[in-house]
């Protein structure tokens, strides 16, 4: 009886769309994994991976990079912006 209730109980709740539980992807620091030691400020294409649509630097919690390399990336992006390789602000980066 009780088992049936719980059976019916769960089925009563119907979601409009299937609840999407995004599988927790283990974030890793791409620099440590690939063994990259130096972030080049002249390489715009590579730096664009760390910028969002508006050209702002992505935070570590999204990219998963370690603090040491996040500082190098931030420094390289600011140098690239100084040399007009990367824009300070834009609306359609990619």
């Amino acid at each position, binding site marked *: 009886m009780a088992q049936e209730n719980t059976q019916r109980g769960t089925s009563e709740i119907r979601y409009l769309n299937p609840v999407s539980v995004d599988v927790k992807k283990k974030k890793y620091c791409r620099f440590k994994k690939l063994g990259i030691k130096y972030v080049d400020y002249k390489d715009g294409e590579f730096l664009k991976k760390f910028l969002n649509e508006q050209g702002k630097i992505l935070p570590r919690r999204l990219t998963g990079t370690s603090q040491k390399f996040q500082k190098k990336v931030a420094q390289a992006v600011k140098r690239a912006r*100084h040399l007009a*390789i990367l824009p300070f602000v834009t609306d359609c980066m990619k």
Partner: protein
Amino acid sequence: MNNYETVFIVTPVLSDAQVKEVADKFQGVITENGGQIVNLENWGLKKLAYPIQKKTTGFYFLMEFTGEGSIISTLETQYRRDERIIRFLTFKQDKYAVEYSAKRRAKLSNKSQEE
């Protein structure tokens, strides 16, 4: 003897000969002050990400050189004096940067040989 790397942007208004002359001038500034040029790259006319002094394109030059620290102050005053340069950046290479640029040069040189 430190390794340095400098990138500067020349205003697009000039003719090619004048642009070449600007590059030679700064090569001379470095060699006169006891520097030694390792690599000179001309990226040519490139679009700027945002307009600088109302101009949207510029000639990019990259120079890698070794030398004493005192070179940099004279080089930068030359940059500031010369109004054809609209933007410059000098950068001291640490050991990883030197390794990286050596690898990059090797890649560029063998790519140019293939063409």
